[in-house]
């Protein structure tokens, strides 16, 4: 168990040292969201209507940015071999990586979503529900992303392949996430979409690390 948290702590420390990489995903999120008022026009009603969708899609794309290096750097410098020799199952190594991705990307995106939603004139009643949906939503992006990143280790042009693998998987996450925020905006029941998101998270929590672990074993062979 101590080995597990050692991997998480080491990755968090590395992200702090390379703060620019972490910040890049957040800035991408802010800039991409800020382009929408320019593209669809600054009418407050239009923006309020589109805000949940804009925030979800931009958060999803921003979460993809650091995935390329999630295992890439460790594979190239030999660290991945050492991680698989720590005595932890490969799936636990993958879960540790997913946690560090969420803490360095998912959680900051969740926080930055607050000012972005104000910028996009999101209904204040919908904001708490949007954030509540982003909580399992960003965790799901980290889990799917970890599995995808593990699969493309060592592949030529892996960075291009990765979004093609991960984005289709995230379709249900976006559907239920936006549905929850929309329902809150219209004063409807938000429980069903939020429960669906949570159910997806509960299913992905064991499955994605297992898949990623198998991919890690395959990558070093």
């Amino acid at each position: 168990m101590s080995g597990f948290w050692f991997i998480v702590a080491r990755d968090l420390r590395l992200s702090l040292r390379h703060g620019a990489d972490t910040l890049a995903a957040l800035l991408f999120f802010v800039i991409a969201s800020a382009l929408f008022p320019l593209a669809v026009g600054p009418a407050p009603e239009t923006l309020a209507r589109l805000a949940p969708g804009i925030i979800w899609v931009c958060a999803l794309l921003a979460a993809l940015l650091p995935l390329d290096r999630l295992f890439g750097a460790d594979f190239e410098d030999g660290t991945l071999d050492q991680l698989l020799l720590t005595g932890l199952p490969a799936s636990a190594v993958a879960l540790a990586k997913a946690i560090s991705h969420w803490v360095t990307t998912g959680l900051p995106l969740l926080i930055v979503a607050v000012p972005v939603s104000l910028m996009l004139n999101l209904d204040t009643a919908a904001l708490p529900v949007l954030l509540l949906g982003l909580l399992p939503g960003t965790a799901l992006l980290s889990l799917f992303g970890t599995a995808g990143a593990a699969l493309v280790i060592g592949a030529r042009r892996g960075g291009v392949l990765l979004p093609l693998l991960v984005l289709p998987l995230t379709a249900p996450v976006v559907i239920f996430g936006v549905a929850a925020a929309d329902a809150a905006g219209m004063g409807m029941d938000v429980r069903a979409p939020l429960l669906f998101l949570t159910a997806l998270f509960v299913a992905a929590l064991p499955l994605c690390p297992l898949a990623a672990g198998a991919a890690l074993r395959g990558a070093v062979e």
Partner: protein
Amino acid sequence: MLDVQEISAIRGERRIFGPLSFSVDDGDAMLLTGPNGAGKSTLLRILAGLGRLAAGSILWNGNDALADRAAHGALVSYVGHLDAVKPGLTARENLGPNALEGLEAMALSHLADQPARFFSAGQKRRLALARLVCRQAPIWLLDEPTLGLDVASVARFGEMLATHRAQGGMVLSATHLPLPLPGAKELRLS
């Protein structure tokens, strides 16, 4: 005791080596020699549980070592061609638990809090070797461990190897350079 029975490795359509059988007792050392491409690195990775074993079995104290690769990994310290050193972390952070003992063994204590990006290639190599001491695993698998080391460091590494073997650990090393491993058996791959 590590008992290797009739193992072979295949890459693509080509057999790299095998069938190959040997055993290494606690406290023993074995040198893997042979020309480039003979499969020394592949054999070491297979023994570490990282590579793919095409046939045969590897027994650790009589039990199938690769049945639980995670548990086997904890018994192994592997130093490959790559140093697995993160430039953004200090020497101490790179090693993790028991870092100070490892740094002491490779005479890097004075650089403990230096970021590894300031290290020379030889110092990075010494840091990778220091990890052997930190991990306290019984099986050391070394792939060209002394490449790029100065004479004093090779001598220090020799002491490390001797201490490890005196404590009942075993060493398997691929090498083209003479290693300070007195009484080591030799396995020639061709």
